[in-house]
């Protein structure tokens, strides 16, 4: 038998598989069975996490992304953009006079030297404008200033 004949035989055989289907009665009853199924589905309330699992495992419906998928992707994208374009913050830099330059432009007392433990309002000044401010430290631990006025939080 030639390959072409073999192929034709295979196609005939595959066409026979069209007959592998239930009887007419099954299809006659199918619509009613479907209505029963739908009613049962409506009555069975899905827990919230089932929806999450469904979206995670089936993010597309018929080749179209779900609204939840689009929303989650947009949120991730925005979070990513915000993360990369946000202000770059580095650690505080030690200045020669024992003060610490904070990235936000605030110069505060150094944690390294003992004198700085006695933080005085006049030590706190804004680096940006160079104007002294009267902001008081809110509290100080054994090693230096921990936090200041909420406007200066770091």
């Amino acid at each position, binding site marked *: 038998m030639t390959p072409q004949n*073999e192929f034709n035989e295979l196609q005939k055989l595959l066409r026979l598989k069209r007959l592998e*289907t239930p009887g007419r009665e099954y299809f006659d009853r199918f*619509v009613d069975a479907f209505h029963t*199924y739908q009613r049962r589905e409506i009555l069975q309330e899905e827990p919230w996490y089932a929806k999450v699992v469904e979206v995670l495992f089936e993010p597309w419906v*018929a080749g179209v992304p779900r609204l939840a998928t689009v929303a989650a992707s947009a949120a991730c994208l925005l979070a990513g953009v915000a993360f990369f374009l946000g202000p770059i913050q580095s650690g505080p830099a030690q200045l020669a006079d024992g003060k610490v330059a904070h990235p936000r432009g605030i110069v505060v007392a150094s944690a390294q030297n003992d004198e700085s433990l006695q933080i005085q309002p006049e030590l706190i000044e804004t680096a940006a404008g160079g104007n002294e401010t009267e902001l008081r430290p809110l509290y100080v631990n054994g090693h230096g200033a921990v936090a200041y006025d909420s406007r200066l939080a770091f």
Partner: protein
Amino acid sequence: MSAETALPPDLENGPTDEELVASTLKGDLGAYDELIRRFQGRLYGVIYHLTSNHEDTNDLLMEVFDKAYRSLPTFRGQSSFYTWIYRIAINRSFNFLDKRKRRQGAMSLNDLDEDGLPKLDLPDISPQNDPNKSIMLNELQNKLNESMLKLSKEHRTVVTLFDIQGLAHAEIAKIMGCTEGTVRSRLHYAHKQLQKSLGFYLKK
């Protein structure tokens, strides 16, 4: 049932699928029932040839029509309803097959209907007057089902849609969201594999 019941009714005299979709969206539930009647046979065939299990096919078919009904408001008519619902059926079947694979590592024979043939009231296609031929045909059918199951789900889908359901390459490409070239290449590969597995029987 006979193959004829799987075919859609004469569409020339009735409303189009899109008109039925519009009626359903306006609240005419009878219109959706009509859509179910039009597609139940063909979708049953697709799902069954992917899962090889009638109970699973029945459950999945219900799920497909339910999912389509709930998603109907999002159907924008960019593709035909026919393509759209076929995609839902194939996606659902693929998800089911993946879950079954994860659950069992590999498919168990217990998942399949005995001999890969339906247990429901099916016509006997074997020749009544020739017992030898009948045995041979049954054996061949079993071997074919076995070989089909060895194909990947994508290859099995193109064989089902092209060889069993008789869809055109372009239609299959739309349904599967790939190019016609991909469909042809998958078909070529699947046919080669099937011929290789069934070579002994096809030569007889």
